[in-house]
């Protein structure tokens, strides 16, 4: 059975472990073996923790043998984005400045997942401090898209999306500040969700932009994403922005999978010029599908969404320039140039100059500019007003529709290197996802086919109101079920097998 374990869903694995059909240890070993077989090509992981995973798996097996109750994810492996602090695995955030850092405390999300019986496999690659859309900003090199190893897996949670799409893990956790879960999920052909801001705890998530950062799930099916969403979420006294309310019933919604009578709003401003034709055609078909399933499709206009991207690239860098001031070379991480003659301030500047990569420096500089006296009102202040207008647009749209839909990304996965030194081109990857970060509402991406022009995955974004997370799972599950029926298989069944000769040849010809 071992050979097939990596192809099972999280729901199937949890059921098989609970029923005693397979041990958690066998499941963990199968996934560690898969990582060993393919990750030299995918490069999803920065750190693989076989000892931690096998110890956790043995603990689950011992609980079961003793007749003790098992958690909802007992024995299910999960890949952890390297932005979550883990007391038994290094946490680098893809940065030289934290190379080799072993945190003294555990994040709330990973603590909860361990409590639910999930098996941490290791830490996944990411754009440095979650700033980027491709993992090319990782100090440790880019991860690869399992659909085409010459292309990016998206970002910043690109190690997590690649690990799930390559069947190295059934589940992964990421963080979404401007689209960093939904965009990599879309371009890797998997499901990724950004919960309502405050629905999942930021405690132990190394901060990028605190008013936007949102932990969330990545998985191969909508139900698996909902199971992970539910297990990782909920009120946390350690995060002052955590919402003290029950987690929306996302698992029940994913099982309901029905859109009859639901009003679905197509956002006029998220489409048209600048979008890849193959993305727009698959999106149009998804809207037709929703209509055929009984949804009432309406068009809604959100005129200020056009200003969401520029507002985001003022707000996020401003918050980042403040948050990353903590990397001063004094208490943890790298220290450079401390030769006994230099002052603390000089050592601080040298450490940050050496420890941060190009994109992090760009954003710190941009944020410092936007917050400096003389520019504050014209840039940061104005961006905060745009944020209000984007929220008003959402409020008006959600009066006409129960959920909103759009393409998750303007294009499919781009080639590694194509946008690496063109920041504005890179920033456009998050065009469709940013409005929901500014407004704090829930949103996810679910696969809706392959673009006819390049054969690469396209994501359908479903947006729901604040704390209406369950609605987006209902819609996504209905779309997924209808498409799997139409195709006769899940989308990932069309991905080139990483162990096949074809993939090897493909990889070799790209080098």
């Amino acid at each position: 059975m071992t050979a097939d374990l990596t192809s099972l869903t999280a729901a199937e694995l949890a059921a098989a472990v609970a029923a005693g059909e397979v041990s958690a240890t066998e499941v963990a070993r199968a996934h560690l073996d898969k990582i060993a077989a393919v990750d030299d090509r995918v490069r999803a992981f920065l750190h693989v923790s076989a000892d931690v995973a096998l110890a956790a798996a043995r603990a689950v097996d011992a609980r079961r043998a003793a007749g003790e109750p098992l958690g909802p994810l007992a024995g299910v492996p999960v890949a952890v984005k390297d932005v979550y602090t883990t007391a038994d695995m290094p946490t680098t955030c893809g940065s030289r400045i934290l190379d080799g850092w072993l945190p003294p405390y555990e994040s709330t999300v990973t603590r909860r997942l361990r409590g639910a019986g999930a098996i941490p496999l290791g830490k996944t690659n990411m754009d440095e401090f979650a700033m980027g859309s491709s993992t090319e900003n990782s100090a440790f090199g880019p991860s690869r898209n399992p659909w085409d190893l010459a292309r990016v897996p998206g970002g910043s949670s690109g190690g997590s999306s690649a690990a799930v799409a390559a069947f190295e893990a059934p589940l992964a956790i990421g963080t979404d500040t401007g689209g960093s879960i939904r965009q990599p999920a879309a371009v890797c052909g998997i499901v990724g969700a950004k919960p309502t801001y405050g629905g999942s705890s930021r405690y132990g998530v190394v901060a990028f932009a605190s008013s936007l950062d949102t932990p969330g799930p990545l998985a191969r099916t909508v139900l698996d994403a909902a199971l992970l969403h539910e297990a990782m979420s909920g009120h946390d006294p350690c995060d002052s922005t955590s919402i003290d309310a029950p987690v929306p019933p996302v698992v029940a919604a994913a099982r309901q999978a029905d859109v009859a009578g639901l009003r679905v709003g197509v956002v006029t401003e998220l489409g048209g010029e600048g979008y890849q034709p193959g993305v727009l055609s698959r999106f149009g078909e998804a809207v037709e599908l929703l209509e055929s399933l009984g949804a009432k499709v309406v068009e809604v206009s959100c005129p200020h969404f056009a200003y969401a991207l520029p507002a985001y690239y003022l707000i996020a860098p401003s918050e980042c320039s403040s948050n990353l001031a903590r990397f001063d070379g004094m208490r943890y991480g790298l220290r450079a140039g401390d030769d006994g003659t230099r002052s603390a301030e000089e050592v601080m500047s040298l450490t940050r100059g050496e420890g941060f990569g190009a994109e992090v420096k760009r954003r710190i500089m941009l944020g410092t500019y936007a917050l400096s006296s003389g520019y504050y009102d014209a840039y940061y202040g104005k961006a905060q007003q745009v944020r209000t207008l984007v929220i008003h647009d959402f409020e008006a749209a959600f009066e006409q529709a129960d959920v909103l839909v759009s393409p998750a990304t303007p294009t499919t996965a781009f080639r590694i290197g194509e946008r690496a030194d063109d920041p504005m081109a890179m920033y456009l990857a998050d065009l469709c996802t940013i409005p929901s970060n500014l407004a704090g509402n829930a949103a996810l991406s679910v696969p809706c086919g392959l673009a006819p022009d390049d054969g690469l995955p396209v994501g359908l974004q479903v947006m729901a109101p604040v704390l209406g997370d369950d609605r987006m799972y209902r819609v996504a599950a209905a779309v997924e079920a209808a498409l799997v029926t139409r195709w006769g298989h899940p989308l990932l069944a069309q991905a080139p097998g990483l162990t096949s000769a074809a993939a090897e040849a493909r990889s070799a010809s790209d080098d």
Partner: protein
Amino acid sequence: MSSITREEVAHLAHLARLSLADSELDHLSAQLDVIIAAVARVQEVAAEGIPPTSHAVPLTNVFRPDETTPCLSAEAALAGAPAVEDQRFRVPRILAED
């Protein structure tokens, strides 16, 4: 017209405590110029009388019960430090020589 000069970029780097090589300054100046011109589009929006939003979800002050809970030991807090002396963080001098 360029929106930011190389001198301004060097000043920002000092404010942000980022030591940058000359080549980095040149490259960043050109890129920041393009990015600032692009994000300045927010100024096109008529936002007269529109309140700013700092957080999407309204914030209220949060209290917890006034009870002691476990915290990091000195060893744990110092474990990742670049330099330690006598159970403390050792840092370079913080005052100028003269």
